[in-house]
């Protein structure tokens, strides 16, 4: 499973600047186990954002957000609410955020940083890849990870090597920044290209030993007892 932690609330508020109508998406897979994007965390986020004056147009906890087909079927009944929103805040790992951004024609904001890939409690990912960098920058890039999608992992791309939408490394590979450009254009966010993505703090990619533990960590508390509410 992909372990995540919620981004600082101030960072999330920064993403939502100028947007009033927000839809919240959570995930009943890894994010629920990480206690970052299950129903309790989605409701908590709803309350906090409402206290900041945001209108929450709706919320949904999908089981599993990493799978496009499930995102589509879960959101179909809520399409009107999603489409009347200014944006969608996703409390999930980097895969789920990218899947949501691929399926929803609205600005999608990451609510979590993805820490590492642990064991068990499945995920069901498609083509989206998360590098577990611990400092999600999907907000800058329209929900397409430049570390995963660009051959050079450039944060301020594109480089000068792409032609006809293909990466310089291989004609089989689409240019990641071309995809990012298309997505930002589609969602009316081309201004994001002006922002400087700062040098990355790669040390966040090296989680602490405590965070590296796998399936059991979610069931454990500091004292080793089993948490309530988790099967």
């Amino acid at each position, binding site marked *: 499973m992909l372990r995540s932690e919620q981004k600082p609330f101030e960072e999330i508020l920064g993403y939502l600047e100028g947007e009033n109508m927000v839809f919240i998406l959570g995930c009943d897979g890894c994010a629920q186990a990480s206690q970052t994007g299950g129903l309790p965390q989605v409701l908590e986020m709803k309350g906090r954002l409402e206290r900041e004056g945001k209108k929450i147009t709706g919320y949904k906890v999908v089981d599993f957000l990493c799978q496009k087909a499930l995102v589509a079927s879960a959101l179909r009944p809520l399409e009107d609410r999603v489409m009347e929103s200014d944006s969608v805040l996703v409390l999930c790992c980097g895969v789920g955020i990218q899947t949501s951004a691929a399926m929803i024609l609205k600005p999608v904001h990451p609510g979590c940083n993805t820490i590492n890939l642990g064991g068990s409690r499945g995920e069901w990912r498609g083509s989206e890849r998360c590098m577990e960098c611990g400092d999600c920058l999907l907000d800058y890039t329209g929900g397409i990870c430049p570390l995963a999608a660009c*051959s050079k992992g*450039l944060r301020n791309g594109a*480089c*000068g*090597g792409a032609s006809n*939408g293909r990466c*310089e490394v291989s004609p089989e590979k689409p240019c990641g920044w*071309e995809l990012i450009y298309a997505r930002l254009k589609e969602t009316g966010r081309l201004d994001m290209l*002006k922002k400087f993505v700062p040098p990355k703090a790669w040390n966040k990619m090296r989680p602490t030993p405590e965070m590296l533990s796998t399936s059991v960590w979610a069931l454990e508390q500091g004292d080793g007892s089993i948490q309530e509410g988790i099967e």
Partner: protein
Amino acid sequence: MSTKTPSRLEKILASGNLAVTSECGPPRGSNGDTITKKAEMIKDYVDAINITDNQTSVTRLCSLAACIRLKLMGLEPILQMVTRDRNRIALQSDILGAASFDIFNILCLSGDHQSFGDNPQGQNVFDLDSMHLIQTVRYMREEGKFLGGDDIDRPPRMFVGAAVNPFADPFEIRVPRLAKKVAAGVEFIQTQCIYNLDKFELWMKQARDRGLHEKVYILAGVTPLKSAGMAKYMKNRVPGMDVPDEVVERMSGVPKEKQPEEGIKICVESIQRLKEVEGVRGFHIMAIEWEEKVPEIVEQSGLFPRPKVE
């Protein structure tokens, strides 16, 4: 215009003269004479000489050592630095090494992907990207500090350059990307080789519309074609290169032994036309393994003699 560094290139550009730069690729070995010989051929015809940094990801003698050789000859090197191979510690360290020899120009690049070179298995570093490297050099120069915040004893005094490719995809982001590099602090630009002059003029117009030509010195990049084969290779195989069919046809249309001459003619004609483009402040002549032709290109283009500066 006032200057901010002791760079000779900056002085020439600030004086309003068209600047001329060229480049030398270091050898695949430790024979330093290769560099000094190439530099001897062109030194009176250019204002500054770029030294490439393991171009196309093929391992070569390092750019910094080659720049030091030029400096010791009394020439003006431009240190090319790619972020592909070194992290931010190594990059800052090499910048200081160059500064200790009073190397006053740097060109900040991300670099070709390592899959093109002789070590495709190598680690993809890109700890910083070219945008970050521009900011880093400016920060070290203006603030006199390392990225980590500590003070630098005798900070680098470097005129900061970058490359742009007006021809890569998507075209719509090429001028915004130039604007981003300007906002990051770049002071001069050397462009990708220009063969599609119409497209370059369109790009330049868009740059002028945003006033960018007044914020950064733009040197137009040109590369003389040696043969029709090279034209085809550049068109089909070199990433981000735009060689129009008529250029390939013109090269193919003359006998093989006349093709080098035709290539020089095309190059000189391009420079003549680019001189008329508002915002072009000089030329970067990349005569790839053909440095001996730089003098005649410069002379035929009416760019000789080079201005003297103090």
